[in-house]
């Protein structure tokens, strides 16, 4: 091909490695580049291969599609780690509120307190992260100007606000209880506040699952190829599963083993749901839309999520089996902690010092189960977080290379044409 005599000094072309990108093969371009960085896309794509100095070589393109100098067609939204954090925390908050309500109904004080604290903390931090990610944070209240069904972001704002009200009230009640009904200067209003516990818990639980699910629609209703394809092919199922997993895991880590049976089952259901929904979703998406979920940093994150999910699921199942086998030992132990809630739970985690005298022979069993519960719960929550960050970043990555936009669109256009539908193309011959 070349006529230059110096070309013989060039290193040989990597064999077979030009078309197929291996995991992490793109190195730095997968990292968290500046959100909305307009030039970010120039780093990725086919032009950058051969970065060892033989820049011109890839100019003979090896894939079918053409593009405008490999530049992005669709822009990534300026969403950074704050949004990833929120995706995780929103799910965590929603699931925790459900667990808290269930714990209230079934008299599990330790889990009730732990879940409600988790819910309000996640709501608060998540909401703050959302505001921080705005271009004009001082105008965050403008979100409340309209209620717009066509905007998942608008509906999500209202869902989060509705959820926050109920969560806030239940949190205030728990805080009041923990501080011995002394800290808050409520006076006669204390009765009113505590009377609102069930309505507030119901209200919060009502918004809980929409809070866990809407973020999938928020990502899906975009032109970002990976998100849009995921949203059309079952991302909501992945996200509610992930939320169940996170909330179950958090409760497992924070509440006594004897009380967290429902949390374990919910978490296990979540792991099964996520594993199934994720693989089903990937199968239905176009290969060019799935690629960003396999490559680079997002690929690593999703892969890590898978590992943690399996480990957490095994751990949770083991704790569940153990809790059922040693139910009597656990019941004896939990009697002493009871209403003292989180403090008791922490004490139990440290080594259940308070109940040593009560049951000398059972404390080891409980400590092992508790330790396993904490570890596997944390693994499940981390798996959920990695899933959210992985999906978020895979979408942002998918905007950087126009291949992810052009190939699926070409494919569906050709598919429609093959089916005889020729009147809905944006490009027309006449």
């Amino acid at each position, binding site marked *: 091909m070349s006529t230059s005599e110096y070309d013989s000094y060039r290193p040989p072309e990597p064999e077979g490695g030009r078309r197929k990108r291996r995991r992490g093969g793109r190195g730095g371009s997968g990292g968290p580049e500046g959100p909305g960085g307009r030039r970010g896309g120039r780093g990725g794509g086919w032009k950058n291969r051969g970065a060892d100095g033989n820049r011109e070589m890839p100019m003979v393109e090896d894939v079918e599609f053409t593009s405008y100098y490999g530049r992005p067609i669709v*822009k990534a939204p300026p969403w950074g780690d704050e949004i990833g954090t929120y995706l995780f925390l929103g799910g965590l908050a929603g699931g925790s509120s459900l667990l808290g309500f269930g714990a209230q109904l079934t008299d599990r004080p330790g889990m009730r307190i732990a879940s409600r604290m988790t819910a309000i903390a996640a709501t608060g931090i998540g909401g703050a992260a959302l505001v921080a990610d705005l271009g004009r944070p001082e105008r965050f209240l403008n979100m409340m100007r309209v209620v717009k069904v*066509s905007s998942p972001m608008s509906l999500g704002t209202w869902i989060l606000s509705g959820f926050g009200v109920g969560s806030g009230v239940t949190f205030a009640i728990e805080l009041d209880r923990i501080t011995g009904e002394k800290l808050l200067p409520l006076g006669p209003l204390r009765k009113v506040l505590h009377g609102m516990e069930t309505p507030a818990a119901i209200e919060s639980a009502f918004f809980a699952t929409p809070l866990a699910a809407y973020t999938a629609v928020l990502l899906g209703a975009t*032109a970002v190829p990976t998100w849009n394809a995921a949203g059309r092919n079952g991302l909501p199922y992945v996200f509610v599963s992930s939320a169940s997993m996170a909330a179950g895991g958090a409760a497992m880590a924070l509440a006594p083993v004897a009380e967290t049976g429902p949390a374990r*089952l919910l978490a296990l259901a979540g792991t099964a*749901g996520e594993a199934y929904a994720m693989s089903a979703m990937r199968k239905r998406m176009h290969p060019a839309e799935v690629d960003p979920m396999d490559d680079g940093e997002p690929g690593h994150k999703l892969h890590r999520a898978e590992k943690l999910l399996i480990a957490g699921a095994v751990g949770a199942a083991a704790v569940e089996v153990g809790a059922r086998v040693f139910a009597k030992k656990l019941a004896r132990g939990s009697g002493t902690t009871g209403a003292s809630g989180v403090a008791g739970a922490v004490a139990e985690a440290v080594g259940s010092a308070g109940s040593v005298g009560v049951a000398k022979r059972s404390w080891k069993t409980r400590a092992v189960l508790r330790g396993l519960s904490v570890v596997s719960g944390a693994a499940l929550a981390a798996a959920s977080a990695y899933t959210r960050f992985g999906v978020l970043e895979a979408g942002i990555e998918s905007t950087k290379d126009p291949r992810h936009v052009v190939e699926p669109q070409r494919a569906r256009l050709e598919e429609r044409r093959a089916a005889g539908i020729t009147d809905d193309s944006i490009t027309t011959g*006449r």
Partner: protein
Amino acid sequence: MSTPTIDGGALADGHWHDSPHSRKGFFTDTSICIGCKACEVACKEWNNNPQDGTFELLGSSYDNTGSLGANTWRHVAFIEQDSERIEKARESGRKLVNLGMPTIRPRTDESSGAQPLDGALGAAAEGQTSAGLPTTPELGVDLLAPGALEPTDLSNVDTTPPDTADFRWLMSSDVCKHCTHAGCLDVCPTGALFRTEFDTVVVQNDVCNGCGTCVAGCPFGVIERRDDGTINTPTDRDDRKASDMDVPDAGTANKCTLCYDRLVEGQEPACAQTCPTQSIKFGDRSDMVDQAHDRVAELHAKGLTEARLYGANPNDGVGGTGSVFLLLDEPEVYGLPPDPRVATKDLPKMYANAGIAALGMVAAAGLAFLGSRRS
């Protein structure tokens, strides 16, 4: 222009149907674009848009602007192509015509433009295919043809620079499409984006809080949040802090307004007014579409089957665009998506799935508590 159904993506429609104004739009005829970038300059000047980028050379022909963005509302693309690409473009364009798409508007003047086209296509259909068609058009003088403007008395002297026939330079001025079903408008949670009485889509920068949803919602990658840029004059540059202060509408979404401020005064947009070759035409959208249909037929009649329209079809994924383009190759060559689709079209299905998923989560939680009842 559109019915207010969520399915059509027009839920956030402005309901200007009774307004005395008709829908305005651009027709950007890239076949007569000379790449002068006057539109880019006029746009920046009029809209007081900040400087973009780092003054680096992008290595993409004469294009050092890169793409549309928060600070660039007109962008001229430059594409250099060899004869192989030209032939491919001609072939793909011919296929488009041969698809037998229904004509979008009723044709009454069948005799004028369509007749020679049928001839050329007929020849192609009879098996002569690309070999039967000349690479440079024979019929009449065409500005696109290299050497077409040479004086005739030099016709026996080959003044054509070597390889020129095998080369073409595409230039195209891209702009916001002002879609019929606008993704950015649909997903805006604050109502900062709105549809004007001219059926264009405009951001209210005093309302926008920079959430960035519209950026992801645009299938063309037009709208962007203004996170950088400067419009400092040389005298300001000594003051280091000035660069942080004087960017207008920082942190909010920005895009072409189709010069809304000029339209309300009865003026035409700055880019259209400044365009020296009338490659950028402005007017009632229906007129623009008619002109586009006529122009593509005219080019086809000259054998230039690579000509095609982009955005003139009301049945496409965005319901047709307010800015119609005449392109000379596949849209992705210009950095345009080949089959854009407003994402909110999928919303009903996605909401339904999210609802089922949410109910499933409630059921899972309920079963989890039932499954671990304590005796």
